[in-house]
């Protein structure tokens, strides 16, 4: 079966985001069927059988997650759609919401039917003003056409969808941080257990799914779990949006089957490394992933292959760096981000992210010491796995891998009195190497 694009097939057509366009192309048919013909348990089983893995970053099997929600509960159940796409290098959910908002809404209807949810919240990143407007218009239109609200699509199912705009905090993309923020609290991750499926939004059972994950659902129902499972590798199948940014000729979002090779993605789809330069490093799954050296890039873009390569698919935000990149500056850039975005709740992350930025900054401005490379590694070790959420890990993984895989850049910066960019801006500092003992 040839690969069919489900997210991006029509994105270059005018009015591709409109309800009429979407319905003309078979939109909401699967939602209608799910509401009228499907039993909730069958929907869950189908999604399990399709082996749909979460597209937010952790890759958790979606059907299994739905199965954790208690069936018999007096409490209302909620769907919280994670549209707080804030992982550096990631811009795929935004594309869906801007160009194909009804696909997301259809996915929401299917998942709510499957789990018995009557209220879904979409938590959208605050900076996505255009996407939020588009999505709100789509929601309003869906309500007025009887697609949402009472008696969805002529069934006896009621579903309300509320769009909530975040205020631009990275941590609110973490599922429990997002729930805290939705509840009106400071956006801080919560202790687990209890997990959201049992005690989530407002203390009620909550499914948290990523935009792209939900957007897969109509297609799974359309072609069936078996056919879906044959797209890409067995363990993490399906169509996938890959975001390629950085030093490539043609950055953008590419819809390809899961498991495409990283080389093919960069060289063929993204037009190769720009300006005829050589590849130096790739971060394959958003800035939280371990970095890959150029010689490690013969890897397939799926969850298992990347895990085997010591990194992760994450959000599939592929950040490409060419041979002119100084990895000291890259480290500083990334650490500045995590330091800024740490919520400050857990000690290792609150203090560790700031420390890493300060060390990176010191090395970049020529005040580094040789032992700083080991210090970064040790600080990273002391952060990983010791906090409530994964932000500390997300800062430590790139830091530790950048320092250890590109030691020569760090040695050069320490010996030469700073990163090349720093030296260029501050020529006087050249030669003041390694004065700190």
């Amino acid at each position, binding site marked *: 079966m040839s690969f069919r694009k489900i997210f991006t097939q029509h994105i270059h057509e005018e009015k591709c985001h409109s309800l009429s366009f979407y319905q003309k192309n078979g939109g909401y048919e699967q939602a209608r069927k799910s509401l009228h013909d499907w039993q909730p348990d069958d929907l869950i089983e189908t999604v399990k059988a399709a082996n749909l893995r979460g597209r937010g970053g952790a890759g958790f099997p979606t059907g299994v997650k739905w199965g954790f929600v208690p069936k018999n509960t007096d409490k209302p159940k909620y769907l919280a759609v994670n549209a707080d796409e804030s992982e550096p290098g990631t811009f795929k959910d935004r594309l869906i919401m801007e160009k194909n908002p009804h696909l997301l809404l259809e996915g929401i209807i299917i998942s709510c039917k499957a789990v018995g949810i009557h209220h879904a919240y979409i938590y959208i990143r605050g900076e996505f003003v255009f996407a939020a407007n588009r999505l709100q218009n789509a929601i309003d239109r869906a309500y007025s056409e009887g697609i949402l609200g009472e008696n969805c699509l002529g069934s006896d199912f009621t579903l309300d969808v509320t769009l909530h705009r975040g205020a631009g*905090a990275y*941590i609110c993309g973490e599922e429990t941080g997002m729930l805290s923020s939705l509840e009106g609290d*400071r956006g801080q991750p919560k*202790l687990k257990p209890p997990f959201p499926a049992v005690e989530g939004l407002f203390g009620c059972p909550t499914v948290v799914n990523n935009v792209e994950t939900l957007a897969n659902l109509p297609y799974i129902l359309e072609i069936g779990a078996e056919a879906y499972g044959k797209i890409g590798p067995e363990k993490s199948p399906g169509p996938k949006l890959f975001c390629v940014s950085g030093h490539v000729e043609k950055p953008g979002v590419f819809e390809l089957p899961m498991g495409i090779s990283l080389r093919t993605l960069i060289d063929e789809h993204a037009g190769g490394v720009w300006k005829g330069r050589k590849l130096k490093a790739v971060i394959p799954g958003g800035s939280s992933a371990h970095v890959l050296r150029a010689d490690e890039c013969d890897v397939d873009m799926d969850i298992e292959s990347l895990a085997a390569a010591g990194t992760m698919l994450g959000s599939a935000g592929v950040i490409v760096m060419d041979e002119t990149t100084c990895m000291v500056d890259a480290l500083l850039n990334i650490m500045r981000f995590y*330091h*800024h*975005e*740490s*919520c*400050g*709740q*857990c*000690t*290792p992350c*609150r*203090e*560790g*992210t*700031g*420390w890493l930025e*300060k*060390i990176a900054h*010191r090395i970049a401005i020529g005040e580094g010491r040789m032992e700083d490379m080991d*210090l970064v590694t040790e600080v990273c070790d*002391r*952060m990983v*796995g*010791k*906090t*409530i959420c994964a932000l500390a890990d997300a800062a430590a993984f790139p830091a530790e891998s950048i320092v250890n895989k590109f030691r020569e850049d760090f040695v050069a910066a320490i010996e030469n009195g700073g990163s090349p960019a720093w030296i260029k801006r501050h020529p006087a500092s050249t030669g003041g190497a390694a004065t*700190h003992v």
Partner: protein
Amino acid sequence: MSDTSNELISWNLNGEVVQNESGMTIMEAAKAHGIEIPCFCYHPGLSIAGNCRICMVESNRSPKPIISCSERIAEGLEIQTDSEKAVDARDSVMEFQLINHPLDCPVCDKAGECVLQDHSYEHGPDRSRFVEDKNIRHTKELGPTIDIWGNRCIVCTRCVRFCDEISGTSELCVVERGDRSVVDVFPGIPIDNAMAGNTVDICPVGALISTDFKYEARVWNMDRTTSVCGGCSRGCNVEVEALDGFVKRLMPRENLDVNDWWMCDHGRYGWRHLYADSRQVTAQTTEGSVLPAEASKALQQTLESSSSTGFLVDPFMTCEELHLVKQLADSMTGSRVAGWLPADGTEESFPGGFTISAAKYPNRKGVEEIFGADVFGSAASTLLNDITSGSVDTVVAFVGGHGFDGAGAEWNAALSSAKNRVVFTTQQGAWSEGAHLVLPATAPLEKEGVWINEDNRAQRVRSCRSLTDQNFPSELVILQEVQAHMELRSRSLSAAGVFRELSESSSAFEGHSHSSLGDHGTPLSQKPAAVGSEGGES
């Protein structure tokens, strides 16, 4: 605050199989076996935040270390508190806690009772690998009684949770993110509630500082007295902390039956009257001052020259003092006893279950137990009439407490009109002016004995004055000396001895003793087990 049940769980702690009630957290259960796991953000009276991460231990159920303040024990769980992984996790947190901490212990009021300092000695590195500049955060006033030294804050959020959960006032919050996080108040809304002082106590570092105690004393130099607050009839258990004989601060003392871990600010800061300029410190007659050693003789002579005597007691007196008054009154024909009560304040209740009583005195129950339920009622109106009509020629009045208002306008007027007047008073005032004999009274924190709180719980109070140069004998001493002069008593006893007499003569107090009451008190109705068996000092 875990929900424990009686079901026992077998689990493995550091290689040994141990048992605890199900529902306990690992930290609580380990503590029951003598293993103290360090903590910053955990407080037994507050919800679990799990943010400081110092309590991480190694578990057989998780590849990562787990936090023992939140995870509960389970059948077959194996926990290592001192394995390489656990120690590394703990050391990591300590290193992180200290990198931006100013380490200004020499000028920090918390030094000596600082959790960070203690854990640093035990688990911290002896030198820092952090060579960068430390972060600067705000130092400012958060409210009329509380300042914050933001640089010291470790963002454990105990104070924030206290204001959310216990005082219910929610003034405090964490502002900013990451290592810029610091506790603050909302602009224009200072922390100003009647329980605010507790936030300083529970701050594990010197971030929140009481402006009342700031720069007053190094904590290790102070003497501590285990006592009870006399500010209201709740009877919060406290430590009275004094430097060179002068009280510097009151701290709440844990008692889950009375005040949990807390006390109110009225009680906490309500000790300045001890050092008021108007404090009565010497004995005086209309002719002049009386030497301490002559005071009891002077009182005895007054009593013996009286044909009918009225005793006016107050609800600040201890049961022992009241017992001595009762013995005196019983020995004198024509005498009568009544009591006065200070005006009620307002009751304040807090969402966390803490209540400040409207009754601003500590021992009404004790007075009623010893002199009968009508001592403040019909007996009082009778005595008031008898004084004004002159049918009582001598009145011995006890005017304790903070004493600035005497015994209240009505009694003050009556006292002034009495023919003969003996006044034990804490403060000088119209009620003592022109009295036949004025004697200094002990204020609540200076008493030695037993009070009975509004829930009928008998609790021991101890005097902070024994630490100071005691410039005048207490009522307990004077009253016993008077009894000796009157040949009612062969020798003077300690408060514990007088209480023994009381327990032997009164069925309500029967079976209780100072040692059986212990540091946490006992309901009066709950008789302790016989002497020699368990149930003594708790």
